[in-house]
């Protein structure tokens, strides 16, 4: 199954920060990791990653640097900052509140089989 794009929109920032909290990464690496870790449930339009990364960089939640791979390909890496880590914590809390609320509603309205 594929997740609804709108469901994902707000949480992509959370996912990106979470990935970066485990180490410096470049854009494609994050896409590949998101896909493999979610068992391909998420396949976002890859381009949308970059406005998110650039916005985080503008907020100083991440910093970036270019690094050349042994193949000669120059990739832009992102590193999470202290500010980014506290933003991640905030967003994690929001997310857990949100998912609890959704689950509570789903549990309450679970229709009894007729």
């Amino acid at each position, binding site marked *: 199954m594929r997740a609804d794009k709108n469901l994902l929109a707000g949480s992509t920032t959370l996912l990106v920060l979470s990935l970066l909290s485990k180490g410096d990464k*470049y*854009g494609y690496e994050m896409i*590949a990791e998101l896909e493999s870790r979610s068992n391909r449930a998420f396949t976002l339009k*890859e*381009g*949308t990653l970059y*406005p998110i990364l*650039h916005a985080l960089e503008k907020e100083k939640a991440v910093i970036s640097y270019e690094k050349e791979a042994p193949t000669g*390909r120059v*990739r832009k890496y992102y590193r999470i900052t202290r500010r980014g880590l506290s933003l991640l914590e905030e967003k994690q809390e929001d997310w857990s509140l949100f998912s609890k609320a959704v689950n509570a509603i789903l549990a309450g309205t679970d229709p009894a089989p007729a």
Partner: protein
Amino acid sequence: MSAPGDFYGSFQWYCEAVCAYVRFRPDHGAISRELTAHLEDHADALAERHPELPPTEARRRAIAAMGDPEELGRALDQLHSPLLGWLQIWWIRSARLLAVLALLLALTRADALFTAFTAPSEYGFHMAALVERYEELDLVADFRPREIWRQGGYTFSIERALVTRSADTAYGRESLSLAYQLRVTHPNPWQRAPDFRAWLWAEDDLGNRYPSRGQQEQYGLPVRAGDSAGNPTASTPFVSYYDLWVAGIDPDAKELTLRFDRYGENAIYLTVPLEGGASHV
């Protein structure tokens, strides 16, 4: 790999299509490099997973996965504001320019900078005139008094003192004169060059007083009674020099005490032996 006809649908085409919507040109290069690396990574990953796939198809799929270039370009444009971008660029440029100018200025004025921190010990007008007529002077002493005085962060010392005897008619009798170069050091550059000279007066061991200019004016004292005066000469961030003198000193006096007590008791209190002493110059 790409003939001109292949431009449409190439990675370069995609990057240009994105950048077309980003108004802040200086960021086009970085955006294109980042997206190109991403597209190449994606195409390589496809080629690895599906070796049978033709390279053009891998590139096409990589671009398709990226999404609409216009949508991406417009989103990036929101984040690469031309106003902020140019402000930042001009800010960096002007900071660099200032740094270069400051460096150039420092280089051309390196000697002045050096003296600013080492303080030139130039004589003022009065001392210089005496030194010039040195041979003609009826010299009693030429020395560097050992005494120093510390007060309120300032350290006062006398670099050179000249005591001369003269039948100076200005005071109606034979008298002694003390000319001295006062050195004042202070660790705080904001407190350099204390303006105390108009209120620095002197008293000899016989009890005669030699009022300062400030006292003379304030109390209407006659200059004939003797006189303590002078001028500042050089002032640097940490050291200031003064060209000072006391004239019309009683010829029988052995010692002279310099005093500054305008703001309290004996703020400056420096005794100079009139026969000389300490290290003679």
